């Protein structure tokens, strides 16, 4: 009995690998070959080949003329139309948890409401000194890293009219007024880098990294951000950065399959 349970466990590991191969099809590409999957997933070619064969037998994949595998129409049997579709918050939830586990710092999720950022979800760190997110509170777009990421996704003309409407662009932490030139500099940096890094305050200096999360039509669902005191959190460190970006990219692959909800 014990040995058959051990075999069972081995088999379940093999099954988990088969499911992982199928899950790869959530990414941008329409089809995959054995060596691509072998590199991408770090499985032996033999394992990949067996997984593909099983999935093709089940009809979830189809082998195309080029000998590569693409999604089969029997995937359509794996849906339940009575279940509600996930919203942006539900799509992001597992990634917020993973970002928190990776960094140990606070993670937030924000969307746009006209000229404001509204935070719709957060995981707050238990460490002393946390980046605080007030769920449901409205902050002007220029006043947070997440909001500036939203601004950087807009056409230049829309940014200009935002600046015109909201000037003087007041800040509360630290108290003051943001100059249009400073906002533009931050927007250009974000566009170039693909995400925003913001530092503010003193004793301690707080750092946040905010990432735009796209929708199916090239627009924005919202922004996921992680932040904490500079002395223990560096989003650009070689230890953190690659995993951080990989997580954000995985989330993006998912949200790109959904249209943004209209506010």
């Amino acid at each position, binding site marked *: 009995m014990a040995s058959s349970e051990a075999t*069972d*466990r081995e*088999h*379940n590991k*093999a*099954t*988990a690998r*088969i*499911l*992982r191969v*199928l*899950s790869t*099809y*959530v990414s941008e590409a*329409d089809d995959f070959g054995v060596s691509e999957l072998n590199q991408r997933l770090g499985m032996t070619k033999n394992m990949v080949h*067996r997984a593909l*064969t*099983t999935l093709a*037998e*089940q009809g*979830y994949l189809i082998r195309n003329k080029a000998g590569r595998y*693409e*999604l089969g*129409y*029997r*995937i*359509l*049997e*794996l*849906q*339940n*139309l*009575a*279940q509600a*579709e*996930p919203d942006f918050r539900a*799509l992001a939830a*597992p990634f917020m948890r993973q970002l928190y586990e990776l960094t140990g710092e606070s993670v937030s999720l924000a969307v746009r409401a006209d000229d404001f950022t509204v935070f719709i979800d957060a995981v707050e760190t238990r460490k002393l000194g946390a980046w605080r997110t007030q769920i449901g509170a409205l902050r002007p777009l220029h006043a947070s890293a997440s909001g500036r990421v939203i601004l950087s996704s807009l056409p230049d003309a829309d940014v200009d009219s935002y600046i015109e409407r909201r000037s003087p662009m007041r800040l509360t932490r630290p108290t003051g007024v943001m100059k249009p030139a400073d906002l533009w500099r931050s927007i250009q940096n974000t566009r170039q880098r693909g995400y925003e890094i913001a530092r503010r305050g003193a004793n301690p200096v707080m750092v946040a990294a905010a990432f735009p999360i796209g929708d*199916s*039509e090239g627009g924005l669902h919202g922004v996921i951000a992680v932040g904490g005191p500079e002395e223990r959190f560096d989003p650009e460190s070689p230890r953190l950065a690659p995993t951080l970006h990989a997580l954000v990219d995985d989330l993006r692959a*998912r949200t790109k*399959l*959904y*249209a943004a909800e209209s506010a």
Partner: protein
Amino acid sequence: MSDAENPGRAVVNTSALHVFDALRIVAAASEPVGASDIARQLGLPASTVYRALITLEESEYIDRFQSSARYELGAMPRLLNRALLRRFTLQRESAPLLRLLAEESGETASVSVRLGWYSLRIAVAYGSHDFYHRDRLGEVTPLHASLPSRVILGALGDSALMQYWAFAEKYFKPTSAERKLTHSSAQSLRRDGVVIEAIAASSEKAAVGAPLRNGNGEVIGALVLHGPIVKSGATSAPASFLSARKSLEASIAAAPQRFASPFAHLNPNDIRIALPPSPSFD
């Protein structure tokens, strides 16, 4: 199919097959379903089913319903279905037009494509009316069994129609009421170029649908505006609906290869889909 019939399958471990069987049960259940229920339906020991469910849950293929011990489909199958729909170029192309139609009418606008002897809804936009038709993305129906389906069926030639009824008789067993409705929709399409059908919630108003054809005149899908759009007995669709169709057909004619279904090369008789449960009005 047993291993004896298909010796190639012997290399596949049986636990993988159990896992897919369990997944299909969760997908097909109308309510969240527990492990013992699944074990009974599959005739497998509970311990085997528990392990299969753990594998599925860890891989995001199933999820606990409200933290209970019962399961529903997880994120991954939905994402894979979205990824499949994304392969239809018509989805991207029709999105802005559907949004306009939905905004203007307040009702539900959608595009479905032909997939063998079924229709598959690949794009949808919901209007702002409080009571709306919750036509879902990814819904698959036999070609006689929904408005978009009947639009596509009505636009097929006579020989394809005969082949369809042979297939339907074998697998769907359509009722005589369904056949009658299909017949009258086909007539309306031939006469008016559009299908106008009474809707469940209103006796006075009707929904409209029209086929989408490629440059060769072959039907590849249907555009549908679902809701009280026109008076019952009307013979023409609103101008905005017709112009949306015209614009989609022009795009299709300009690049027929890009708009071809990824499954167009398959024989329709080979495409069999176990239909997922669909929420009903009553």
